């Protein structure tokens, strides 16, 4: 395994308290606001995509020592360098976000849904088992939900597949499902989770039939 995500935190033994924050406190320094805006503004340029962004962020060796905007910035810096932005002739941006277009661009968003080309393999109520093996690349099935049995609760349509999109291998859209697990299926020592159910949104290749 050469790929390691430092961001897969669900269920890990983290003892620090949750530091609450009042509503409306968005930035703690002016640079954080510039970083947020740069990341959003770089979206339409085609330098990266949301999955590649996440992949670069989660593999930063010092991920756990950085604040979230530091993570965003370090990944942006890395992507810009990789893209050759500082060279004499960097690849031209596909599209540049101008001030007058910002609100319209936000309102349109970047839908991840794509037309279905084949029928969904699973339906609401189906029992499924998630794949157990951690792939050697970016993926969106958290470690705590690997090799677990759950039930399909919602079918969301066909969405861009992060596992390929993050690696520049294309969108290869896949059916997306909400899969619900009983807490006792996920944790052997779930002291704080009696009568709780946890779901993940899982792409079809993450699932095997359990019936």
């Amino acid at each position: 395994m050469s790929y390691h995500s430092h961001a897969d935190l669900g269920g890990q033994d983290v003892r620090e308290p949750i530091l609450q924050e009042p509503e409306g406190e968005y930035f703690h320094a002016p640079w954080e606001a510039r970083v947020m805006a740069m990341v959003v503004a770089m979206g339409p340029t085609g330098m990266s995509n949301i999955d590649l962004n996440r992949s670069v962020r989660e593999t930063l060796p010092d991920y756990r020592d950085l604040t979230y905007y530091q993570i965003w910035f370090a990944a942006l810096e890395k992507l810009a360098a990789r893209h050759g932005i500082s060279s004499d002739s960097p690849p031209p941006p596909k599209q540049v976000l101008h001030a007058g277009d910002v609100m319209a661009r936000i309102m349109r968003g970047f839908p991840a849904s794509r037309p279905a080309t084949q029928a969904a393999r699973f339906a609401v109520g189906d029992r499924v088992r998630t794949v157990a093996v951690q792939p050697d690349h970016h993926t969106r099935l958290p470690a705590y939900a690997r090799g677990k049995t759950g039930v399909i609760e919602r079918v969301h349509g066909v969405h861009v597949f992060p596992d390929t999109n993050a690696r520049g291998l294309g969108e290869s859209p896949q059916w997306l499902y909400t899969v619900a697990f009983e807490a006792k299926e996920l944790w052997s020592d779930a002291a704080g989770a009696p009568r709780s159910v946890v779901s993940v949104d899982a792409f079809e290749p993450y699932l095997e039939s359990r019936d």
Partner: protein
Amino acid sequence: MSDHEHHHHEEHAKRELSPLELRVRALEALLSEKGYIDPAALDVLIDAYQTKIGPRNGAQVVARAWTNDRFREWLLKDATAAIASMGFAGRQGEHMVAVENTAHLHNMVVCTLCSCYPWSVLGLPPTWYKSAPYRAKAVKDPRGVLKEFGVDLPESTQIRIWDSTAEVRYLVIPLRPAGTENLGEKELANLVTRDSMIGTGLPKTAP
């Protein structure tokens, strides 16, 4: 150099910039010089997420669901469309799902893998939502998390955690507080807190 950068330079002239601030400034200058970003667009973006797109949007959605059954049903069936009818749409809210708390069920939303959050209705996520303690504990010890937030639910309440691992974004519709029968949509929206729409809090009680 743009006016914007001038402004920033004057603002910070009194103190030394940290190495990180210098790097951020250098990257913005480079991306701007190479024609990738328009610094004026950054100003508009920052203003939008500080003054226009935040949890007051979601609070209006919740208040409408509390007072209008047809809207509530639409919201539960097709949240993206129902929310768009109120003018809230787009970035990080393209695929919305609304989940409703009941007397027996409490919903809570997390993104254990990064920081996925419904920007169109809640704006930018609070720091704790993106930080390790919440992301680690929410899926395994939801009652402990709720206690940290001062929320103590009956043992009989089922807790439902939604880990946002793809591009679907979740909005919690909290239980309408008792004694609010005479309040209008606007007054009700004032009771809806950001945390109650993530599921780590409850709405304020009737005034």
